[in-house]
């Protein structure tokens, strides 16, 4: 029999289990029955806290949003140099995802099966990068400091490579990159990425 918990503790314990199961199998791959079985409570108790599976899923997303990365320090501590800020933002983001790999797994599931709201939630985290890159590249072009480049496509390239690094490192744990710690791998890809932006001489 499950030990007696306060309502708040019970709610947190349900969210914790749901997060793990949603990360494993996605929204549609998990039933309320499976969740209550793992938590060790009756469905009635779960429904006392969450009206539906949708509401429970939202609560998991809400908890992730509380871990939202703060880039303020990265931005304030550095000179406003494009590469420098990009590097510190990426470091903040990558370490946040590495410590919450379930978030990336839920993101992957949501790409195929998720609701518009969940897709938007996950996309929003990447938007920090795409906004930052698009704006700065547009500005650097206007100042004629770099050769013309499609800022939107460049931002997409960045999102793609960083997401792939995270997939390799926290979902697939690929042998191919075992000898390369994530910080080194990120550093390498940022150096390669910066090469596609040509400064004007």
């Amino acid at each position, binding site marked *: 029999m499950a030990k007696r918990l306060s309502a708040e503790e019970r709610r947190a314990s349900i969210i914790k289990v749901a997060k793990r199961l949603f990360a494993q199998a996605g929204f549609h791959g998990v039933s309320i029955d499976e969740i209550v079985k793992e938590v060790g409570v009756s469905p009635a108790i779960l429904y006392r806290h969450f009206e539906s599976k949708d509401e429970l899923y939202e609560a998991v997303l809400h908890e992730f949003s509380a871990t*939202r990365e*703060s*880039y*303020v*320090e*990265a*931005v*304030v501590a550095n000179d*406003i140099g494009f590469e420098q*800020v990009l590097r510190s*933002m990426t470091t903040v983001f990558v370490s946040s995802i590495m410590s919450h790999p379930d978030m990336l797994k839920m993101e992957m599931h949501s790409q195929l099966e998720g609701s518009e709201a969940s897709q938007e939630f996950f996309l*929003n985290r990447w*938007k*920090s990068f795409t*906004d*930052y890159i698009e*704006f700065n590249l547009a500005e650097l072009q206007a100042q004629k400091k770099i050769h013309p480049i499609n800022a939107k496509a460049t931002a997409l390239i960045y999102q793609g490579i960083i997401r792939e690094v995270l997939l390799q490192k926290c979902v697939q744990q690929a042998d191919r990159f075992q000898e390369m710690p994530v910080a080194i791998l990120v550093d390498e890809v940022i150096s390669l990425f910066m090469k596609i932006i040509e400064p004007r001489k």
Partner: protein
Amino acid sequence: MSFDAELDAKGLNCPLPILRAKKAITALNAGQVLKIIATDPGSVKDFEAFCNQTGNELLSSAEVDGAFEFMIKKS
């Protein structure tokens, strides 16, 4: 409240509003006020942290018509 410069950061995700505010404040004199309008809900916490870290004064932070308005006085 009167202000000396205004920054429209609507539709932008953090940290862009912070970066643009940092730039805009550089152009001000001490005591002058920058008004910022943003839509990213994360900007509320971020501007508090920004002011704490930079020593500029957050005069006000308010939600107006679904957007967030901040008044920051340069120290």
